[in-house]
């Protein structure tokens, strides 16, 4: 876990690396790594790598970074965990390699030395790292298949810079702060900034599942080594399994993933909700041999006694699996007090992440450095309403949506006449226009604002420029390449490549890191995906999907949890927002379209977040 940064003055005309700038970038990420800091500048001052450390594997100074290969040729700065490093290390030792430390970082150096950029295919875990080869004068960067760990870069044509956070790059002081219209538009459309765009024109994300090489001529094309769409598409060719085989295989794959995710030299706790995902993971942690499990659940006074309250069921799961359990209550006063810190820690604007902030805070209060989260279960096992909504919309609307001008006409009618006020949700206006394709229907389902509504919250020129560069529907379609045939596989691909990647995982990163807590997600794992995709791709009945997960532990998840209807994780932020001091120059009450009493609270929250970060 940790924060990484680097500067590569690759161009002959570029000034040498400024150690002060690199240090400012690094130390903006102090919370990501409170246990140590390292900075290295190459002899000719053309390269600098930096690191902030949160020690979890090999707590000794041996794990310090930047770390060098024995011959000094390779230098690495690494954020994340390589869960299969014991196996990789054993292989490398058999091949005659000698190790100087106990850390997973060193494995990266040996693998790169042996296999070059292809080494990334051997890694199981969450990671973002950079390796500099001093002989080849070449920088190699890689990001994990799902994009669990962030990696941002800025290249001005002379100098390449990277860091774990956008705000850290800006804090260095050498990058233009010009906003990116595509990032602004993307945030209002999706509720989070879709990669590779960011809030800043000069900064881009290295996309999930990609590698990048920078040499003396600058960046080469990014190379994709993993795609969720491709995993599903390949899985569709697999023969269908009998029910008991499917159960056996998924049980083994889930246990295997949990076992890998428990690798640590510090205790690993777990977030517990009232849902199947986190409950099943705690059960599997027990099956994997961990007897002493610390769990934590959030509760809100506002929900006490109603069905949104997670605390009672979570407590039952905790008793069921015999964990040391804490219910952490969050009050409006605490929310209000923490809000400035939340907005500061929020690297990229998002309409979510508040819950993760508090549960991470609670885990840290319990002394945990690592916690398991059930994030990803809904994407893998079809837990969202989108799994039924999107295919249904496409089935019903594919013909009407092809009638020229019909969809657009209906949207104008719905938006510009009194009908607008009767719609249960303003997005309904776009139903016929968008609902006929997977990308369009997904946008309807997940979109916060539809493209046609953006002018209410952004200036016209920003909307035009942002839509031109982002092209939201095409952006969604782009995730479906290659395109799986089955509806389940398509929706699962979209959810994992868009909502989960740009919102859930990014929120888990900044909100966890703000409390120096590493959040691990065993249900977001490319090896698990390869095992599960052949089982789920051809669309098992939806109830059955989560059942596979619930029945995976030797002691299945309690019946009460399995029977509970999905509510999603709800926080009373909507209510608290009314009284909160957002420190923003503009409040949503200043905007006509957001002042109507029936405005979805997420839209108001989005506006407040965007105004606060502007």
């Amino acid at each position, binding site marked *: 876990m940790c924060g990484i940064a680097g500067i590569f003055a690759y*161009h*002959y*005309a570029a000034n040498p690396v400024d150690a002060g700038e690199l240090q400012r970038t690094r130390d903006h990420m102090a919370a990501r790594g409170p246990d140590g800091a390292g900075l290295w500048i190459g002899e000719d001052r053309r390269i600098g790598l930096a690191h902030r450390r949160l020690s979890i594997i090999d707590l000794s100074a041996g794990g310090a970074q930047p770390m060098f290969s024995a011959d000094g040729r390779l230098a690495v700065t690494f954020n994340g965990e390589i869960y299969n490093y014991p196996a990789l290390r054993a292989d490398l030792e058999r091949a005659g390699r000698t190790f100087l430390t106990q850390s997973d970082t060193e494995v990266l150096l040996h693998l790169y030395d042996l296999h070059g950029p292809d080494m990334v295919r051997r890694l199981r875990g969450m990671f973002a790292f950079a390796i500099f080869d001093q002989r080849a004068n070449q920088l190699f960067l890689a990001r994990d298949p799902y994009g669990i760990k962030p990696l941002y870069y800025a290249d*001005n*044509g*002379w100098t390449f810079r990277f860091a774990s956070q956008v705000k850290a790059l800006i804090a260095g002081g050498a990058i233009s702060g010009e906003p990116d219209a595509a990032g602004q538009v993307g945030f209002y459309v999706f509720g989070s900034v879709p990669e590779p765009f960011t809030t800043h024109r000069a900064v881009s994300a290295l996309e999930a599942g990609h590698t990048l090489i920078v040499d*003396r*001529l*600058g960046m080469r*094309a990014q190379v994709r080594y993993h795609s969720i769409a491709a995993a599903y598409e390949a899985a569709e060719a697999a023969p269908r399994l009998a029910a008991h085989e499917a159960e056996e295989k998924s049980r083994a794959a889930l246990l295997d993933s949990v076992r890998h995710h428990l690798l640590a030299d510090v205790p690993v706790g777990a977030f517990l909700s009232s849902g199947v995902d986190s409950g099943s993971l705690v059960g599997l942690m027990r099956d994997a041999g961990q007897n002493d499990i610390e769990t934590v659940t959030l509760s809100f006074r506002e929900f006490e006694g109603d069905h949104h309250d997670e605390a009672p069921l979570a407590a039952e799961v905790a008793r069921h699996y015999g964990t040391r359990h804490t219910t952490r209550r969050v009050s409006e006063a605490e929310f209000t007090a923490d809000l400035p810190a939340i907005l500061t820690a929020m690297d990229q604007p998002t309409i979510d992440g508040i819950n993760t902030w508090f549960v991470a805070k609670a885990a840290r209060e319990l002394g945990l450095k690592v916690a398991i989260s059930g994030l990803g279960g809904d994407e893998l096992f079809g837990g969202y309403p989108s799994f039924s909504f999107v295919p249904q919309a496409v089935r019903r609307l594919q013909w009407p949506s092809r009638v020229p001008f019909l969809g657009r006409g209906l949207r104008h009618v719905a938006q510009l006449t009194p009908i607008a006020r009767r719609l249960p949700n303003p997005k309904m206006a776009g139903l016929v226009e968008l609902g006929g394709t997977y990308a369009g229907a997904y946008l309807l389902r997940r979109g916060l604002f539809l493209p046609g509504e953006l002018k209410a919250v952004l200036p016209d020129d920003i909307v035009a420029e942002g839509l031109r560069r982002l092209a939201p529907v095409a952006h969604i379609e782009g995730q479906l390449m290659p395109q799986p045939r089955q509806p389940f596989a398509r929706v699962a691909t979209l959810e994992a490549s868009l909502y989960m990647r740009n919102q859930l995982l990014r929120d888990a990163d900044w909100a966890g890191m703000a409390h120096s807590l590493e959040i691990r997600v065993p249900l977001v794992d490319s090896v698990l995906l390869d095992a599960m995709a052949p089982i789920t791709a051809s669309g098992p009945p939806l109830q059955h999907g989560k059942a596979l997960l619930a029945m995976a532990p030797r002691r299945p998840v309690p019946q009460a949890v399995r029977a509970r209807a999905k509510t999603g994780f709800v926080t009373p932020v909507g209510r608290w927002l009314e009284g909160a001091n957002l420190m923003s120059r503009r409040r949503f009450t200043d905007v006509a379209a957001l002042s109507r009493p029936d405005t979805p609270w997420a839209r108001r929250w989005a506006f407040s977040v965007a105004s606060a970060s502007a």
Partner: protein
Amino acid sequence: MTLPLTQQPRQRILALVTDAFGSHGGIARYNRDLIAALAGAEHAADIVVLPRIGDSAGSQIGERVTQLAARRGRLAYARAAWQASRRHGPFDVVFCGHLYMVPLAAVIARRLGVPLWLQVHGIEAWAAPGRLVRWAADRASLVTSVSRATRARMLSWSGLDDWRIKVLPNTFDAAFSAVAREPHRKKAVGRLDLTGRDVILTVARLSAGERYKGHDRVIAALPRVIARCPAATYVIVGDGDDRSRLEALAGEAGVADRVCFAGQVGVDELSDFYRAADVFVMPSTGEGFGIVYLEAAAAGLPVIAGNCDGSVDALADGVLGTLVDPLDTAAIGDAIIDALEVRKPRVDVGRFATAHFARHAAGLARSLGQAA
């Protein structure tokens, strides 16, 4: 798998340019430098050049470079380019030396099935061009821009991925050593009748179409400078249709006697001006790069430039000179005063040497071969 260099077939490049050999001006010079770099590289390319203007008879062209007869007319040029692509081929790369020619170059590259390399210089690539040019530019496998500023502006309208647009700065080798400045200085000052003056120098065309150079803002800053440095005199080298306006401006500002219009000068006389001057200033807002800053710096002068265009590259973010807001006359004045009052250490502009440029250009050409 990449073959060792010596086993790779020699690259053949068709260069469609406005002008190169037998022509003057910044773009012709850049094209010549680039073509020479590619033809002279360790694993040299063969290059066929088709210019719009310029007679190459008598100009030195390397053994690997063939310059065809210039075709001024648009249609004649397009026809000649098309014929060249067939008769002088096969080619591995089509190089396009100007954004306005990119539609033709893109069509030819497409017909030949080879990568397109587009060169952009300055303001022509700053604002979004028409749809056709944009479409054609988006077909480029490689774009080289003379500065980071031009690259950033092009990225704002282009659909190209960021990694395709590289920076290949103008190149400059100091013609004479700045160490030799002092012995010649006195003579130059005397010859130019500038004895006892603090000389502020600008070298640029005085074109009504290129008012972005900032002469008028230096004139506006003069009263502030003279108040602190009574001996200050502003010498403007260069001529053009904007001269009378600038003369009138100097009169209005009450500094007519402190502004000297030297007109256009030859190379030798220009050296004298560099030797006689105390500071070079050109607060431009529209430089693609600005070689003139490097000439001045190489002559040992402190340099002042604007902070919003290619000048930032020529001055290497302020390492090679002082960057100011080019629209802020007070800031321009203060920078001039500072340069006149505080002796600045001499800077080294060696980073822009032709050897560096040539190695980079050859590397970029080779990367195209590998991508194809």
